[in-house]
C-alpha cells in the first residue's frame, strides 16, 4: 500500500496533465468556453428557483440561496460520480498499452470536477452578497464540507468504476439512481414540507447528510449539528476506504476486462 501511494505521487505530473487536458478539451471550439462550467448549473438553478419560488411556493425566505447551496452540494457528488464511473473504460486504449497506475484516471476526473465545483461555489458566494445573505464565521466550515464531499464522491466513484468495468450497464444505472435520489434528497425542498411519516426514510439517504452539512453554514449561518457532521464523516471514511481498497486490489486485473 505504501508503495502504491508513493507511485501515485511519482505520477503527479500525469495527474495534473490529465486534469488540465480534461478541462481544456471540454469546451475547445466553443465560443463561451469555460463559462459553460458556470452557465450550465446556473440556468438549471434559475429554472428551479423560478418554478419553486413563484409557481409552487415553498415557505423559505431567500429560497435562491437555499436552493443554490443544496444544488452545489448535490452536483459535487452527482456530477463527479457520474463522470468518473467511465474513467477506466474511456481510457482503455492507453491502459492496454502502457503501464500507469490506474488510479490516475478516476482521480483526474474527480479533480477536474472539483475545479468546476470550486468555481461554482465562488459564484454562490457572489449570489449570497447579491441576495444579502449573512456572511458569518460559520462559513469557515465550508472548506471542511467540501473536503468531506471530495473524499466521499471519490470513494463512491471508485466503487462504481470497478463495477462499470465488469458490467457496462453500471454507468446508466448510476445516472438513473441519481435522478431518483435527487428528489429523495432535500435539495429543492426544505425538510419540513415532507410529511412526518416519510422523514425517517431520509435518515437512510446518505446524501441528506452532505447536503445539510454544506447548507448549514451557507444558508442557516450556523455550524451544522454535530450528529450530522459525524454521520457524514463516518459515511465518508467508510465509502472511501471501501472504494480505495477495492480499486487497489482490482486494478491489476482491469486489463483483462478491457478491449
Amino acid at each position, binding site marked *: 500500500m505504501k508503495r502504491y501511494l508513493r507511485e501515485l505521487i511519482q505520477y503527479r505530473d500525469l495527474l495534473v496533465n490529465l486534469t488540465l487536458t480534461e478541462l481544456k478539451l471540454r469546451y475547445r471550439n466553443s465560443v463561451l468556453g469555460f463559462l459553460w462550467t458556470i452557465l450550465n448549473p446556473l440556468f438549471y438553478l434559475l429554472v428551479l428557483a423560478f418554478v419553486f419560488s413563484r409557481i409552487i411556493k415553498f415557505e423559505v425566505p431567500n429560497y435562491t440561496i437555499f436552493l443554490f447551496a443544496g444544488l452545489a452540494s448535490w452536483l459535487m457528488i452527482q456530477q463527479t460520480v457520474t463522470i468518473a464511473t467511465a474513467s477506466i473504460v474511456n481510457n482503455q486504449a*492507453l491502459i*492496454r*498499452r*502502457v503501464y500507469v497506475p490506474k488510479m490516475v484516471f478516476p482521480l483526474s476526473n474527480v479533480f477536474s470536477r472539483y475545479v468546476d465545483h470550486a468555481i461554482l461555489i465562488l459564484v454562490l458566494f457572489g449570489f449570497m452578497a447579491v441576495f444579502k445573505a449573512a456572511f458569518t464565521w460559520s462559513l469557515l466550515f465550508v472548506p471542511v464540507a467540501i473536503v468531506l464531499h471530495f473524499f466521499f464522491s471519490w470513494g463512491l466513484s471508485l466503487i462504481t468504476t470497478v463495477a462499470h468495468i465488469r458490467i457496462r450497464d453500471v454507468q446508466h444505472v448510476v445516472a438513473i439512481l441519481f435522478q431518483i435520489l435527487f428528489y429523495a434528497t432535500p435539495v429543492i425542498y426544505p425538510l419540513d414540507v415532507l410529511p412526518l411519516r416519510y422523514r425517517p426514510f431520509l435518515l437512510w439517504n446518505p446524501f441528506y447528510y452532505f447536503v445539510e452539512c454544506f447548507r448549514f453554514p451557507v444558508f442557516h449561518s450556523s455550524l451544522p449539528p454535530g450528529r450530522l457532521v459525524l454521520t457524514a464523516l463516518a459515511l465518508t471514511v467508510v465509502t472511501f476506504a471501501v472504494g480505495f481498497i477495492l480499486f487497489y486490489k482490482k486494478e491489476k486485473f482491469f*486489463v483483462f476486462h478491457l*478491449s
Partner: protein
Amino acid sequence: MEKTLIKTESAGVKYFLNYEEGAAAAPRGTIRTLLERKKRKEFWALRDVSLEIRSGEIFGVIGSNGAGKSTLLKAVAGIIPVTEGEISVDGTIAPLIELGAAFNQELTGAENIYLSGSIYRIPRKTIRENFDKIVDFSGLRRFIHTPVKNYSSGMFIRLAFSIVIFFKPDVVLIDEVFSVGDAVFQQRSFEKMLFFKERGAAIVLVTHDLNLISQICGRALVLSRGKASFLGKAEEAINHYLKLIKSREGLEEDARRPEPVAVAAAEDSRRWGTRKVEIVGVDFVDEKGNRKNVFATGDYFEARLSYVSHEAGVKAVFGAAFNTIYKMLIYGPNTLESDFPDSLPERGTVRFVVPRLPLFEGDYLFSASVYDPGLTVAYDHHEMMYFFRVVSRGGRDFGCVRIDSRWEIVSG
C-alpha cells in the same frame, strides 16, 4: 555496471478465454452473458519463464504467433499482471510496444509531448528543456500546434518516437517497432537502440526478423506455446527456432492455432468476409507434397488453400499475396489471370504454385483470400495470417526478390 535489470522467476500469465468471447458473441451485460460467466476456459499464455537480463544487453525473443512473446513483454512492462511467479524490473521502462498509444487525439502535438512525457514519468523540466529538440527531431514544427488527429500515421509515429528518444530509459521493450515507418525511420530506430545499449540500458526485442536478432542480440529466448523452449546464444536460439518450425509441431502452431485472447482483436482485423466460401486451411508444401514452411531461394513452392463453399455452384476468385514482415506487399496475384473454372466444386483445394521461388533469405507473410468475380465482396480474406521462411543458397546479389535480369557491356 553489469547490473541485472530485468528478472523473471517462473513467471506465468493465465487468461480466461471467455472474457473476449463473451464480448464478441453477445452484447456485454445481457443476462445470458452474466449467467455464462462461470463457463470460462483457462489458457496459459506464458508459463514458467525464468530470465535475467543485464544492463548493456540486447535480448531477443522469438517464437511463432501466439507463442507468448507479446504477453511476456507486456508482463515485463507491468501492463499485464503475472498469475504466478515474479517479475521485477529495476529502473524506468520505455515500452515501444505501440508507439503513440499515449497520445490524446484531440490535443495538439505540443500538448501531447507533455502528456506522453508524464505517462513515461519524464520530469516536466526535462521535457521543457528538450522540447525544441524533440520538435526538431520529429520534423513537425509546422504542425506542432495542430491536433494529432489530423496527423498522418507517419507523422504520428515520428512524434511518438522522438519523445521516447529524449528520455533516458533503463529498460527498452520493443515489439516489432521496426515494422512500422519507412526505411529511414527504421534505420534511425536501429541506431537509437544501439545508443541506448551503449548507455547501459537493457533492451528486449521481440521480432520476426531473425536476421536482426542474429545481428544485434547477444542472447535470445525461444518461446513455444508460452514456455521457454530455449534460452542462450542468439545464433543457437535461431537454429533451435528453425528446427522447431520445420518440425510439424512448429508448423501446426504457426498456421493452425487461432491466436489466443490478447491478440483476438488482431485476429478479427486479419480475417474478414461473408464466408460464403470459406478458406479452411492453408498449407505450404514442396514438390512431393510434404508440408513445410522453410524454403530455399529457387525452391519449388506451393500453397494449398482448402476451401468449403456453402452454396452450390458459386463463382469465386482466389487470391494470394506475399508480404515482407514489414507488411510491404511484394506480389499479389489472383485466379482472374489464369484459366480457372467458372464455378467451384463444393469443397476442394486450390493449389498456388511457384515453380522457382524468387524470394531471398528472410521471413515472409502470406495472405490467402477468396472474392466474388467482381472482386468487390470478400468471401473470406486471411490477411498476412501465414508465415514462412526462406533460407539462402548463397549468391552475391541483395534484396528480397530476385528479378530476372542480366548485365551487358558495350564498348565505345
